[in-house]
């Protein structure tokens, strides 16, 4: 798996932001109420780690970025 480019990351982030906000609602619906502060703090940390993980991936010229 190669590292996505800045454009790919921006599009993935758009999907991730929506998913994160919706996820808290889904958790509430199945009886897991997470306070808003810890939830978004946790999500932000997770998001930061994910970005670092993405940058740890090898940068390889795929046809898309060629």
């Amino acid at each position, binding site marked *: 798996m190669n590292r*996505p*480019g800045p*454009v*790919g990351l*921006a*599009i993935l982030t*758009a999907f991730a*932001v*929506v998913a994160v*906000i*919706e996820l*808290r*609602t*889904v958790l*509430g*619906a199945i009886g897991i109420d997470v306070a808003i502060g810890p939830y978004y703090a946790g999500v932000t940390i997770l998001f930061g780690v994910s970005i670092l993980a993405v940058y740890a991936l090898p940068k390889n010229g*795929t*046809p*898309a970025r*060629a």
Partner: protein
Amino acid sequence: MGVFANEYPDEAFVVRAALGSAFVALALGGLMGIIQTLHRTGYYDSLISNADYYTVLTLHGVAMVLLFTIFFLVGFFQWAMTDSLGRESEDIRITKLWYGMMVLGAAMSAVAILGGFFDSGSLGDVQADVLFTFYAPLEAHPIFYVGLAVFLVGTWLAGVDWFRSWWAWKQDNPNERTPLRAFMVLTTMLMWYLATAGVAISVIFFLIPWSLGIFDSVNALLTRTLFWFFGHPVVYFWLMPVYMMWYVIMPKLAGGRLFSDPLARIVFVLFLVLSVPTGIHHQYVDPGIAEGFKFLAMTNTMFLLLPSFLTAFTVVASLEHGARQRGGEGYFSWLTALPWHRPAFTGMSLAGLMFAAAGFSGMINAGMSINYLVHNTLWVVGHFHMTVGTAVALSFMAATYWFLPIITGREIFSRRLGLAQVLLWFMGMVLMGNAMHRAGLAGVPRRTADPTYDQVVFDGAYGAIGELRFQIALGGVLLSLSLLLFFTHIVLSSFDIGDRAAATPDTIPAPLSGPEHAPAVLDNLRLWTTVAIVLILLTYILPLASIVTNGGWLGGSYGALVAEYVLPAVSSTLDVFVGVIG
């Protein structure tokens, strides 16, 4: 071949003017959108009163779904006709005339709506708090209806102008197939002529005389049915130019070619034939229409899924072809080879994705039994914000990034800014649209300034109502930011800011399977229009006859008079006639 703006300067001027009008309407509608979103969700409800909410709602609806969309599409269609036929307008004065009529009509209707913000009497009771559906018993000032009629006639003239161009081209090229873009414009306009017959009759023969005081009353069910005769196909009027963008622009941006010209023609013929005889599915809860007619409308509506599925196949196949031309490989990895850095491509792709989701919620709306669950709830609002608010509006905005250089001769200001704008719109609409659907399932009504009147409490089946309201408000804010970015971008692109190159000539590549593979009968517009008319008559004659028989042409006392005097007279005349020919 040069840049369109230089090749056809007069036509490019009209296209720019039409897009400019569309963007003014978009700005006005967008401003009303954020005001009503924050008011309704309770986050900021002190800016307007609950009474003014309906003025805001009407302006939002009319500006967005009638003015923004239609101004944009006439500009886009003007380009499509001129560029695909390779000829100027037959008479540019006619082209400017229909555009001028549309502007005049739009201004009249907008003034009437804006009058609703002023106290009664200060503007001579000019108001039009009738929402974008404007059927009786809600009544507007006559200037609103007259404005709509002028606007409508402007669109009709535009169609005549384009048919005239096509006819002249046909005389010069008798043995050639109509170019795909011109074919799409012509089928769309034929559908529009059929669809607008209902609303034209309603406005000219009932609503204008009623608002002028010539009639004391009108048959509300009749005006509502005539509105929806137009009100559903108008959705396809917005959607068909979007389909043209997806069929023509997206494959090109992807680096490939349209997969199949014949399939695209079939899709547009299906829209021409099937769009109109579906409107009664908006009236499932109307007690004045028999269930059988509603069932017929539901069946016709479900058939309309076919052109959408065909489009999904053709567009995705074209994109895959383009991606593989760019070196894409594998079952799904080719997706990464697509030009996601281009806001035009990304915006239209996300719009298509949202349209797929909206199609599924549309099937719920169209299903006769399950519609009762969501009818008149916020679900419906969520549905059309994902269709017209995303599939159409986002495609139009995204296409602008590709289209602007063609009609101005100058490149856009910044692709990155454009990309941020379309992504913000996507995020905002996913949040708002999804939350509206779920709030609708909880029974939250639409078209209500304060849904919690009478201390009613809604229980969300999936998430709390407070959370859904937050998501709606957040979505609305993101959409407003996106609009702000869009307008900033348009303004910056209009001036000589930065080091931007002049636009280079752009052509639409030939399809992989060209028009020579399409059966000639597909281009027989007379045949398809006749089929469409027959279907409309089969679907509408009996329900309309039933509505008039039961409620009279004008409802109320006039209807009783008609039943007492006119109908027996007609019946006697028919008896005499039958006796004579018998």
